[in-house]
Structures are given as structure tokens and as C-alpha cells.
């Protein structure tokens, strides 16, 4: 059973987990499988993290969109992160368009870190500069929706 694990390895138990999981199940619907690859083949569901960074590059491409953030660590050093979301067609149908991402924007990304330890995140929820929240999840990849 995966636990919420911080990047520094601290395991957390939270009273909100059940609620959030229930919400996730609601959103996931029938749990159909669809995506280009399994969430679990690439990302670690125990490593939920939040990034707050500056947008440096956008690739609005298949099979996934990628956008890149410069994120300051606690020492003030800039760390480059790769953010992966769903396919352009799926995202645009949800109302997340290419024009919503502008270089230099500050965005907040909530998601799960890559299993291989790379500075790469499955950007399942993105808070845009105007405060709008968009789902970046690859529908049906078996990951938290």
C-alpha cells in the first residue's frame, strides 16, 4: 500500500486521504484504461509533490504535452523540472489550451514524481497564473485522476 511520501522520504498519514481517494474515484468514473502508457510504469504514487516554478518551455505535443519549470530549492538554487500531462486533444477538450501557458508564467503543479528519480513529474493538476485549475491527468492511465 503506497503511503504519502515526501521527496525526503518522510511518510505521512493524513485524515484527508480517504476523502481525497473518494474524490479521485468519483472523478475516475468507470476506471477505463486508455492512456498511452500506465501511470504506474513511470510514476511513483507514493511521491505526491507540489512544484511552484517559472515556465521556461512548452511542448504542446503528442503523445503528451511537456512543460518545463525552473524551481528554486531551499538553498535558492534553480532546479529544472519536466512536467508531463495528457495529450493535447484530451487537454483542450477539458478547456486547457496551449495559449494558457506562457513563458515566464508562475504555475503550481501537483503530481507524482518519476519512479526513476528524475526531476520529472506527472502533472495531474495545474494551477494557472489566473488561478484556474486544470486537470493534466492522462485519462485512464490507472493513476489518480
Amino acid at each position, binding site marked *: 500500500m503506497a503511503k504519502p511520501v*515526501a521527496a525526503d522520504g518522510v511518510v505521512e498519514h493524513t*485524515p484527508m486521504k480517504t476523502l481525497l481517494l473518494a474524490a479521485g474515484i468519483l472523478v475516475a468514473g468507470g476506471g477505463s484504461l486508455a492512456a498511452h502508457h500506465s501511470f504506474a*510504469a513511470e510514476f511513483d504514487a*507514493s511521491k505526491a509533490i507540489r512544484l511552484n516554478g517559472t515556465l521556461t518551455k512548452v511542448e504542446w505535443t503528442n503523445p503528451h504535452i511537456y512543460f518545463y519549470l525552473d524551481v528554486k530549492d531551499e538553498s535558492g538554487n534553480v532546479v529544472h523540472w519536466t512536467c508531463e500531462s495528457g495529450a493535447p486533444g484530451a487537454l483542450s477538450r477539458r478547456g486547457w489550451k496551449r495559449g494558457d501557458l506562457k513563458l515566464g508564467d508562475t504555475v503550481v503543479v501537483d503530481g507524482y514524481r518519476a519512479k526513476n528519480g528524475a526531476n520529472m513529474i506527472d502533472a495531474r493538476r495545474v494551477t494557472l497564473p489566473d488561478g484556474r485549475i486544470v486537470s493534466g491527468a492522462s485519462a485512464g492511465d490507472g493513476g489518480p485522476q
Partner: protein
Amino acid sequence: MTKRRSDSVGRAFPPSASAGLRLFRPGIRTVASYLVAVLAFVAVSTTAHAQGLTVQDFKSNRPTPRMANGKPDFSGYWKGTTDTKPGGNIGKDLPGWKLPLTPAGEAALKHNLTATVDPEAVCIIGGIPRHNASGLPFEVLHGAKKIAFLYWYSYFRLIPIDAALKHSDDPDPSFFGEEIGKWEGDTLVIDSIGFKDEKVWIDENANPHSDALHVVERWTRPDADHIHVETLIEDPKFYTKPFTYSRTWVLGKPDEQIQEYSCSENNVDAAHLGFGPGPIRPDGTRGYVDPAPLPPPIPRTAK
């Protein structure tokens, strides 16, 4: 000493968290705030997904459309339903979803799980029967002598419909196999042999098939809004006995159709994928049982 921080909903961040990379550690006092934000996000997301890949099934009173030759016309954009569970699992209709693997099949499954990346993830055609178990919609264009299945990832298969056709003695192996279509009344039967035995998963869960695979699909369109397949899967190398897979899809909206999708355009993730699909849940689907929750959505008014 590092000053302890909190965000706009009062969620405390640990001193070790950086300015940009924050780790989710909610406190119980923030539950009410989370609830509002989470449910708002759920509402938005549910709406988004309702317009997505799968839909709720429904009854139809509209008659089966037919071609000029009187046969059912399978043309349409077809979407899976939420009744298909477990999705992506070719053993869906078997007790406990347990496939009748031979020892060679068990070895092939182990190989797929431990030494292969999902072929679709590296832009290799999923083939049949995997595409029939996929959650992705597909489109059918149906003519009197040929039927075309158009899939996401820009893959397609073209099946001739001709009662006089016979399989080749030694067809070139392919991911969809050598496919022959024939009518049996209002049922279109597609019989396929000549499959690949490398870089193939028979479903999303990395189950195997060999080059001895024989697939018989029996397609029907009982009304205007549904198509249905009954699939017989035989593979004496990897499965001790034939088994079946059945499924129903519903007609999409008139403005829905397959879109351009170049799988290898920017496949950054390929370098980050592990072998196999990852864990399989007790419900027969791929994924983690108990993922860590994401940080709560940020209330828009607080930004």
C-alpha cells in the same frame, strides 16, 4: 532556524520544504477548507471526464442503420462504457480474471512484466485483441466490401469482407494479423491469424500472446447507438484453452471523430518507463491501490 511556513489555506509546510518544491503534509484543522476546494475540483474534473473517453451506457430505440446491401452499417465513432470492468484486461470475462496460461505463457508473462516496456508506449501498434480491450474510442468506416477501424495513435486496420477469402498458408506476421471478414446473417465475423510474437502485449496488463494466436471477432450492431463484439481467443502455445472477451460500445456525438496523433512526435516519457505496467490492483486494473493524495487545490480567490 528555518521559519515554518503555511499556505493560503493554512496548510503548514515542513521546514525542510523548499520555496518551490513542497511536500503535502496537511493538518486536520484544514479539512473544511480542503473539502470545499477538493469538491470544486472534482466537479470541474467530473464534467471534463464526462466529455471524455468513456460514457454511461443507455438504452436506444433507434433502429440499426443498414447499408444498401441490407447489412448492418457499423460506421460511427465508438466509445467504451463505464460497465466495462476491469478495463484493459483481456481476462475480463473469466472468473477472477484468471487467464488459462500454459507454462510457456507464464514464462512469457513474466518476461513481459520484467523485461519489456509497454509496446504502445513506444509507439508500436497494439493490435488485436488489445485494441478491443482498450479504453480509447475508435472510429469505423464501413463499406460493402471492406471495413476500416481507425484508432487513436493513428493506427488503422482494413478488413476485406468476402465469403470466398481464405487465409494464406504462411501470412507475414503482423500486429493485427491477417484478417478476413464474412457475414453470418447480421453478424460480421472477422477471423484473424498470422500475428507477431515479439513486442506485443495482448492487453494493458502485459499479458502475452504468441504467433499461434487465432482471434475470431463477431461484431453486431443491435441498434443505432451500440456495437458489440464477442471475441474468441485461441493461442495453444500460451493458453491451455480458448477463452472469450465480449464488450459493447456506444455511439459518440456527431462532432466526435478520431484526431491526429503522432505517437513518436515527442515521446519524452519513453526513457523514463519501467518494465511492465506496474502494479495490478485487486480489481484487475493497472495502478496503485492507495496513491498518496495530491496537495489540496488552491482556492482561486486566495491567489
